């Protein structure tokens, strides 16, 4: 039996299982759109300085909601679903079969990544239709790379953090407490024009701001180049790599005793 076929089958079953729980599916897709609508309604018409010129804040919010979508669909959902599956003994049962551990995790990670991609596509379509924010063809390759690096990195970080959650009940608190404050200091919900120095440093350390900025570069209407933000992507990738190392070292198939 080809292991890769087994791994792909895991993706298919995870996917099937996801869509059969319509409440989860509905709100996963709705959340970034709600934020997009609210943020744009509050501040969307404000004119702000972007690299190269001035534009409406909608040009900022569409890509930052793309970043949020990736983080939400990959990081937050993996922290929670893996913690729950571990507590329920789903992982323990799998561990007792010949299915390679990587194939099972591949299934979960690729599934959440596919959901993230769909979510990104919906956010972009929504932005184009309702706010006239277009993704230039010139920056499309850079944008695709940013999304791919972001999804991979935040999936790895999600699996890593799931190794630190003591039980399923703690998972939502851990996921939210680790991501929400960082979102606020990372140019996602609010544009930080002149933040206190320590907040700016915090934002620079964590990967959220770098993912958000890489996405913003692709949407910037004054962008003249191809939009690759190599430094930002390298920082996101480094975090992802660290996450992957931790995930491999600390992953547990068993509920905590």
């Amino acid at each position, binding site marked *: 039996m080809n292991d890769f076929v087994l791994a792909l089958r895991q993706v298919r*079953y995870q996917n099937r299982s996801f869509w*059969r729980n319509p409440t989860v599916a509905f709100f996963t897709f709705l959340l970034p759109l709600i934020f997009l609508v609210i943020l744009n309604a509050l501040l969307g018409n404000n004119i702000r300085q972007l690299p190269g010129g001035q534009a409406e804040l909608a040009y900022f919010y569409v890509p930052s909601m793309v970043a949020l979508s990736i983080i939400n669909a990959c990081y937050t959902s993996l922290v929670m679903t893996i913690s729950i599956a571990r507590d329920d003994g789903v992982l*323990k049962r799998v561990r007792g*079969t010949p299915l390679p551990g990587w194939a099972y995790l591949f299934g979960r990670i690729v599934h959440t990544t596919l959901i993230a991609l769909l979510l990104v596509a919906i956010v972009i379509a929504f932005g184009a239709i309702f706010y006239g924010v277009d993704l230039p063809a010139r920056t499309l390759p850079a944008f695709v790379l940013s999304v791919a690096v972001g999804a991979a990195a935040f999936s790895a970080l999600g699996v890593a953090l799931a190794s630190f959650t003591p039980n399923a009940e703690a998972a939502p608190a851990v996921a939210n407490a680790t991501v929400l404050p960082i979102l606020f200091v990372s140019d996602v919900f609010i544009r930080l024009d002149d933040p206190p120095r320590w907040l700016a440093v915090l934002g620079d350390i964590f990967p959220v701001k770098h993912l958000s900025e890489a996405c913003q570069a692709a949407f910037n209407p004054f962008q003249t180049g191809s939009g690759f933000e190599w430094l930002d992507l390298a920082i996101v990738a480094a975090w992802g790599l660290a996450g992957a190392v931790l995930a491999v070292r600390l992953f547990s198939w068993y509920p905590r005793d």
Partner: protein
Amino acid sequence: MTAPIIEARGLRKSYGDFEALKGIDLTVRAGEVFCLLGPNGAGKTTTVEILEGHRDYDAGEVRVLGHDPQHHERSLKARIGIVLQSAGVERFLTVEEVIELFRRYYPHPRPLDEILRIVGLEEKRESLIRRLSGGQVRRLDLALALAGDPDLLFLDEPTSGFDPSARRSAWEMIAGLRNLGKTILLTTHYMDEAERLSDRLAVIADGRIVAEGTVASLREQQAATVISFREAPGDILDGFDGTARVEDGRVMIETDEPTRVLHQLTSRAAGAGVELDELRVAPVSLEDIYLKLTATDETSE
């Protein structure tokens, strides 16, 4: 003689300061139903989880189908089936889908329809897992353990929490598996379950095996008969040359010579003009043997 399916020697495991296993020896041969009987906390689940590969051990030697389960070898996992005490499954898949998914993990899976028939879930094949009753989920647990057509099956307390009729049908199912030629290691704290299902059993208490053999051989090791009657006034037990104890107002005498002891008792009673109310002579129950074997120092003092 063929090598045993499971062989454990001097198995030890501690959790911090607590010694869960204090040197377990076990041998399970091909085709037998072997039962690990013991009270809660005796070390049953720790033992079985080490054999399954779910726990590491501290000392001793273990071979399951020739492998050390601690090494997580795929070739071992392909030949065993595990029913855990409780383990979840993706709740938004159907019975059929989950069994089919698991079948693909194994090199020589058992056909889907056969699995459904063995566990009696044919009617539920298209139901979502989340719609199953507790008993049906336990059947699904067994179905998933059978997916790879294993040589060795681990059943950890397969009927705990069942009502009497569900237990009976679970027993029939397990007896049916024996007929398929599977080797089965099952843990339980129910005496009747061990008696009903096992070819051989080991009684485990406080991290040690305190008795091992067939149910019949365990009976032989112990006094075979219990004579009991309601506690009577007088001195008919004075100078009685057996061991008698009083339990809930009844005098209990365990003996290997019921005829002689009964004669001695009744002639004394008749001579003293005392009636032995509710006089009863019965074979010692497995429960008595079990309680005696598993009595901890604390309770026997």
